[in-house]
């Protein structure tokens, strides 16, 4: 994936470079829209602190897939990849270090998460633990639970968190308040560069119910001249049909965007499996991989097509993104944030597919791409035939 990580200081704009060398003894929350460089800044900040002697630090991310994504950047910056960990790994390591055994951990994601943080809370309370780390750096911090934030804060001298509340896609109590209280200063990134204008317009139409946010279109600095952006929505007979349409576009996109990640995501894993099956029987089969959030294989330019659920694709970005199976989006409690997060993974080409009704708010947002109907004349009401 070329051009994913910044190469030198000239790649940064002042509001970004200002953040890297903030005082090391203070905690910060960095908010910013998708594509404002939050994850990249997190990594540069971590490296900057490590080079300044704060070697006892952890970069915490949500999934293994994100961990491997950051590891590629860490390699570029000569930053020790072992300092990047997932939330679960961080919790297990800590419990292990202090001899806490995990025997009855629930299988369900949400329940397991509650269980692990409960164990940590017990440990911290019994052992009176604090400030084990110089600094903890949190990516996608909006998705942590308030209890998790409290533990991170207690166990590290300072926090450096990046977050966007519109991208909160997991269930559980909102932690933005805890985050604000846990830091000394909150900074906001204004400008963003990833998403093309058409994608920003859809994102804005999806979030216009949230008046507090600056529309993405206003602050987009995406180079539309270099790569004009496009958003398309199509309705199909079945998920298999959706897969057929996606394959046709991917064949062209592999030629148009060599070496770049092309994504296929679904809200529901069952639909993703159907599409995966169709793709495996197609000519693009050798170039596609099914990704789970817990696999950490690096990006392979010969297999640039990644299939995953929308949740697992969190934090990543793709030159072209296909969001399929949208008929089941309405089943998710955080559906507005989920679709916002998914579409803002796309840089240039975004295609949405469904073979059934999509939630009204999404249908409404998509109307911005339809021409305004001309005012009908009375005669039109009688039909076209004379």
């Amino acid at each position, binding site marked *: 994936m070329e051009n994913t990580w910044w190469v030198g200081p000239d790649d940064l704009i002042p509001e970004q470079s200002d953040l890297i060398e903030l005082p090391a003894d203070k905690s910060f929350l960095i908010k910013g829209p998708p594509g404002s460089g939050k994850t990249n800044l997190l990594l540069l900040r971590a490296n900057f602190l490590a080079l300044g002697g704060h070697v006892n630090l952890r970069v915490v991310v949500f999934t293994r897939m994100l961990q491997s994504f950051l590891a590629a950047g860490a390699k570029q910056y000569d930053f020790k990849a072992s300092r990047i960990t997932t939330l679960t790994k961080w919790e297990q390591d800590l419990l292990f270090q202090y001899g806490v055994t995990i025997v009855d951990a629930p299988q369900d994601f949400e329940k397991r998460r509650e269980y692990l943080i409960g164990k940590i809370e017990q440990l911290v309370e019994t052992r009176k633990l604090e400030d084990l780390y110089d600094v903890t750096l949190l990516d996608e911090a909006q998705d942590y639970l308030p209890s998790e934030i409290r533990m991170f804060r207690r166990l590290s001298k300072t926090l450096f968190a990046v977050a966007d509340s519109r991208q909160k896609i997991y269930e559980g109590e909102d932690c933005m308040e805890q985050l604000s209280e846990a830091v000394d200063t909150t900074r906001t990134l204004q400008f963003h560069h990833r998403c093309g204008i058409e994608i920003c317009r859809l994102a804005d139409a999806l979030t216009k119910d949230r008046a507090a946010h600056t529309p993405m279109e206003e602050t987009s600095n*995406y*180079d539309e001249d270099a790569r004009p952006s496009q958003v398309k929505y199509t309705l199909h007979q079945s998920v298999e049909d959706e897969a057929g349409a996606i394959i046709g576009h991917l064949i062209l996109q592999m030629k148009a965007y060599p070496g770049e990640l092309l994504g296929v995501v679904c809200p529901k894993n069952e639909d993703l499996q159907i599409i995966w099956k169709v793709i495996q029987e197609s000519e693009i089969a050798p170039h596609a991989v099914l990704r789970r959030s817990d696999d950490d294989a690096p990006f392979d330019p010969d297999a640039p097509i990644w299939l995953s659920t929308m949740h697992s694709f969190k934090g990543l970005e793709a030159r072209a993104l296909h969001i399929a199976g949208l008929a089941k989006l309405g089943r998710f409690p955080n559906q507005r944030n989920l679709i916002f997060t998914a579409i803002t993974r796309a840089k240039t080409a975004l295609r949405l597919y469904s073979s059934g009704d999509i939630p009204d708010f999404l249908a409404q947002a998509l109307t911005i791409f339809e021409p*305004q109907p001309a005012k009908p004349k009375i005669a039109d009401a009688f039909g076209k035939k004379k």
Partner: protein
Amino acid sequence: MKAPLNVAQWIIGEPLGAGKSATVFRASRDGTTRAIKIFEPEIIEKYGKAAQLARVERELSLKGLRHPHLVEIIDGGECPDTGLIYVVMELIESPNLATVLADVPRERIWPILAQLAEASRFLEEKGIAHRDIKPDNIAISKDFSHATLLDLGVIRPVGIAELTDETQRYFIGTLRYSPPEFLLREELDTPDGWRAVTFYQLGAVLHDLITQNRIFEDITEPYARLVQAVERDIPVVAAADIPADLVFLARNCLQKKPDLRLQLVSWKSFEVPTIRVPRIADLKERIRQRRLPLTNTLDASDTAERNQVVRQKAAEIQSQIQGLIRRECVASGLFPPVRIVGLQDQAPESACTLAAFPVSAPHSLSTPLRVWVRLKILDVPSVAIQLDAWASVSNDASETTMPDTPAIKVVFRGANDEAVVRPVLQQLLYTALDEAQQLTALPDQAKATEGWLALATLDDPRDQ
């Protein structure tokens, strides 16, 4: 008309051309050869001798006045022997433009138009309107280097209400080449009113030169259909091998509303620019991007509906302007990151855009720069727009402030088209950044130099 042998001692030769009311013959006297226009006796019978003589008198008022691109009037009056009414003119042997329209080299179009405009302006300065400018009334030299405006038969002094031949305002001139207000004889009898007619007719000639077809060529019958076309149809003028400015000049000249026409066109518009940058790429882009103008005729009585249509159009053009600003700022790599905001405007035909740039040391900008572009739709069907701009360097974050009039520049006035508007916005953005950098390059001075930018190097179309 059967050629008489002799009129006012001129020996009549071969006929050169015939119109509805008169025939022009070659004529000689005392070894000189001229053209003589002799009016049909039936016309004189119909409208009366006095009226006809009054017209000839008007034509003769130009006697002795010379202009390189205007036919010279030599003599005229009523022949004492035959009773025929005649005008003697300079003999021009060149073909008329209507017959050679398709042969005119593209690069000669602008010079020819400029010559015709010079002649028309010369007439205006003498207080006269030609009223019948059309390809049939233009002689063009074989090498296409020299154009002459002919047939001063329906010229009219400006601002004299009681003309003997115009007590009833019946239509004169040529319907096809008439602006709607002249067709309905609603033109204003003022220099402005007649200039608007002249600009339209020059625009129609330009249309013909560009498209190599008569204006409304496909409409001949019935007559009422042509009337309707003159009143309502917007002719399509487009060509990839013509400077974009010339295509726009034609469109602006052919505006249906005379006051709008005068807002968009001035005599200066016809002058051949001294330096012309090739614009082929722009033209291709423009043709690709061209969108059909909003053609549905608006019912003026339905204000709410009209406002909605206008507001929608304004929003559409504003979005286009915002896109152009963003593309220039991002693609050039020369600007700090930009935030582009659409500001509310009460008037439906207006929309304002703010481009705001933060302080950025790498861009030598130590105080925030803001550039405003205000769009005003002058005419919806033809999508004629005006763009006003102003800019500031200031730490004051307010977004809706407006300076006093001197700091507001009119940067564009004309038919909306990306190929023309984009360079205008480029000019504006680079001028603003350049001035801002000069003012704020030294951080210590920044405080003292907050304020409105002069945008000194921008052309104001009002000055033309």
